[in-house]
């Protein structure tokens, strides 16, 4: 079922946290709300599930206006960051709790619990208390509880934040699998761009209560609307340089290197200051516009190695390379920028 936020506004006292936000999540789609802490992503999620009252605008599930409907009546499933399992109930009772509240018969509850437990692979754990489960198992129980009454929408609030690295990888694909299997419309709140990119159909990136851009992960990576978005996506992160457009090229101020830009940019921004963003994969030893610097840090990441190159004026460029080259910290290097993939932003940080 689609979710529509129409000019959704949320205040805490005098403070307007979210101002007239519009967001549409299509039926069966999984959308990530991505942003740093305090950007309003959890607030949005809590408003969708009805825990927070809305101060302005509408929230629609399908065509049904749920703005003033309590969370009890909204039919949403929520997985909380802390999982919020009821410590005094065993797993079966935790999962069956929403059905029990609806006064379904115990045989019916048991059948549905068994069915959902099968799907999230926790069949043998039904008699345990939450305290006797590992983090990943608790996560699966929370997911089962959220899904058991076939909610209209599934909301996930930082579901992987409390898990260790390997479990995170596993649960990432598990949640996506279950979401696909059930075809449920889902909203994932996260501050982790890898999670957002790997799990979701679309990402809505948020800052200061506003959605900056909403699009598919690869599109957002390649065509970020602003330097903020470009900086948020990608690991290791993009590097920025500031300089002037002259004679169809971006002039790197420290080395004087000339990096050609698209004709349109060269025309519209001639003589103006711009900010360019270079992703680590587009700063490589053997091609593009050469630029000189000193290797100031080397981070071996296993399959790849990250080099941080400091330019004479102290700015840095990052380079990620597949094979380990023999350079050492302190070596002078002359590597090239792939001008084709260089992102150019204007003074206000918007992509040109």
């Amino acid at each position, binding site marked *: 079922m689609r979710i529509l936020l129409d000019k959704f506004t949320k205040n805490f006292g005098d403070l307007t946290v979210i101002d007239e936000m519009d967001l549409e999540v299509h039926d069966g789609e999984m959308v990530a709300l991505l942003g740093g802490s305090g950007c309003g992503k959890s607030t949005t999620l809590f408003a969708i599930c009805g825990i927070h009252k809305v101060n302005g605008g509408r929230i629609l599930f399908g065509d049904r206006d749920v703005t003033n409907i309590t969370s009890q009546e909204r039919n949403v499933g929520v997985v909380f960051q802390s999982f919020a399992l009821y410590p005094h109930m065993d797993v079966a009772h935790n999962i069956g709790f929403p059905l029990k*509240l609806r006064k379904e018969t115990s045989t019916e509850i048991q059948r549905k619990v068994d069915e959902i437990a099968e799907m999230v692979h926790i069949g043998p754990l039904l008699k345990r208390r939450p305290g006797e489960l590992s983090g990943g198992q608790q996560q699966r129980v929370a997911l089962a509880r959220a899904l058991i009454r076939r909610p209209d929408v599934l909301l996930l609030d930082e579901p992987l934040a409390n898990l260790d690295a390997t479990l995170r990888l596993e649960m990432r694909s598990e949640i996506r699998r279950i979401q696909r299997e059930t075809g449920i419309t889902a909203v994932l709140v996260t501050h982790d761009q890898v999670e957002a990119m790997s799990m979701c159909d679309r990402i809505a990136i948020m800052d200061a209560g506003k959605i900056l851009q909403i699009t598919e992960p690869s599109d957002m990576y390649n065509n970020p609307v602003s330097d903020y978005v470009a900086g948020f996506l990608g690991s290791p992160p993009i590097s920025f340089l500031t300089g002037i457009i002259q004679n169809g090229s971006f002039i790197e101020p420290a080395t004087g290197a000339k990096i050609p830009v698209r004709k349109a940019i060269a025309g519209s921004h001639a003589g103006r200051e711009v900010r360019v963003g270079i992703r680590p994969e587009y700063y490589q030893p053997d091609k593009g516009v050469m630029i000189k610097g000193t290797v100031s840090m080397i981070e071996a990441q296993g399959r790849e190695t990250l080099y941080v190159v400091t330019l004479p004026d102290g700015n840095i460029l990052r380079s990620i390379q597949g094979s380990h080259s023999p350079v050492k910290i302190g070596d002078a290097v002359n590597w090239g920028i792939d001008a084709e993939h260089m992102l150019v932003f204007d003074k206000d940080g918007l992509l040109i």
Partner: protein
Amino acid sequence: MGNSKHLGLYLLAPAGIFVILFFLAPVILTGIFGFTNMSTATGITGGSYMVSESSMRPLRSHFGEEALADQLMQRVYTIDEAGLQAAAEAGGDAAAIRELEARFLGQSFDRRRDVEVAIKSLNARPSSTRAIKLISAEFERSVVNTRFDTPEEMLAAIAGFGIVLNNAQTEALVDVAYTGWTFTTQNFKTMLELPDTKKTLINTLFYVFATLILFNTGFALVLSISTHYMPSRPAGFFRSIWLLPRVTPPVLYVLMWKWLAWDTGFLSVILEPLGFAPRNWMLDTPANAWTFIILINGIVGASMGMLIFSSAIKAIPPALFHASEVDGATRRQQIWHIILPQLRWPILFITIYQTLSLLTSFEYILLATDGGPGGATEVWALSTYLKALSNYGGALQYGYGAALSLVLVVIGISVSLIYLKLFDFKNLTAPPKIE
């Protein structure tokens, strides 16, 4: 410095002394006193041996020695040196005394009249009856009301009056004549025999459980749960209001209730126009008295449970409330399925703590009804206090009171053990499994 490891002990010593003086010693002494017949009559130090009206009573009734008791109670009048001297000192006629010594020294009379006849027969007899009586009074000789430090002294004195006792009589006399306290289990027998005991016990159980269930846990839960769902400012306001009775001096607090209830008080004044005759509403009937007693105790007692439960509810992660809301739980279901199960441990704590404190506390009852009307609200602790420390007639039964309080201790411990069982204490205190 070398002794610094004992520093803690030194620092604790004052506390230790106070604990021993004001807690352990009284507890042990109560245990001991419970098995004695100590009272105002026996005193708390050792006693002496004395033939008296009261000690003869058991001799007659319990040992059936009517004749012996009459014999012991008899007075004789003997003209002896001591009597003559005392009469002289009392200001008796000197010539009369001298003649009395010369003619009657060593003679005994059964009645005072006979002595007086003897005095009147003297040549130097005093002129007034008053002067004769002054002299005759000094010759009265009897074991009655004379204190002897040992039984031997008493028996020797009795033998001096020519009263011969057999072994059984001696034993019985020594037994009844002892005025000090003795060890006995009579207190517990008395307790079982007296119909008051059962009534006091029922009163106590009613008082404790009615107050506990209605107020100390029940109303405390209502207060803490309802303030949990309020915005924080009004919630804090209501909680402080319910704390006020707790910080009011008990005497003033109960006095206000009395003003409310007595025959010219608030209730009487507002109910009179409605056709209810003014009366002391608190002491009017046992039901009224109980209503007031439970209200007075409960309104004070609810505040502690309220504080404990409120903070326990605050400690429940907000996510659990959010989760249950989106799971579809109404307020009522949330209270039943989320809050109450999480409050099991605080409820157990409050239940035990308040049961024990209600069992032993009687100050509000003492101040409000003093057990009335007609003992209807006399609870065990109050009864103990009245028996042992505040008897109207002034005859304080320390031993019986101590025995009563021993029973109270046993009741308290048994009730606590039952609670621990009921609430499954072992599971409650198992190490937490969720972080």
